[in-house]
């Protein structure tokens, strides 16, 4: 049921276009237990994450209010539409079930 839209502020976006954009993201977030180098910790899982949260995170990286060198560099290349689409794709992973 991909057509099920949550009540309230529902972000949208094109998950198919997002999947293409997410190719770069997969280089770190698609490798299970891939580690951030310093400080060392596993890069977070994104599949099934809430879209509004992901949008806020990417915009915070883009604006520099959330700091992480790699993520700031990546987010800087994304338009608002890109952010909508790529986060729509991340959400869709959760909807497809395990």
């Amino acid at each position, binding site marked *: 049921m991909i057509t099920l839209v949550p009540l309230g502020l529902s972000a949208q976006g094109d998950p198919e276009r997002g999947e293409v954009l997410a190719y770069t993201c997969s280089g770190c977030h698609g490798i299970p237990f891939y580690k951030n180098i310093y400080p060392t910790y596993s*890069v977070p*899982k994104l599949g099934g994450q809430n879209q509004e949260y992901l949008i806020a995170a990417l915009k915070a990286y883009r604006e520099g209010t959330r700091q992480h060198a790699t993520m700031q560099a990546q987010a800087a290349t994304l338009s608002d539409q890109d952010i909508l689409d790529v986060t729509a794709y991340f959400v869709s*992973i959760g909807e497809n079930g395990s």
Partner: protein
Amino acid sequence: MNRLTLMTIVLMTSMFLAAITSPAHAAGGDYRRGLEKSQVCQSCHGRTGNESLQPSYPRLAGQHEDYLVHALKSYRNGSRQNAVMAGFAGNLSDRDIADLAAWYSRQEGLQDLDVE
């Protein structure tokens, strides 16, 4: 090297090895304690971390344990800024953070991206 120094080195080496190989260390925090301590967290993130009060709040269920630890410590030291989380994380000890991360990381929820 005198005998006392040698004994000290042997003792410290064995303690170090015990620390890094013991199940307690490998398991990180205590998830049962984490559940007990998560009452405040639950009001926004839900019992398992899948029930976000607002869509702008992240799901926590199944997130990597060490990432959750990193996130909470970042809120606590101010390197990650969020007014709500700063208030809560500021009151947590390292032990609390380890226990909470143990609880939420063990719940069914978030997934890695598929790489095909």
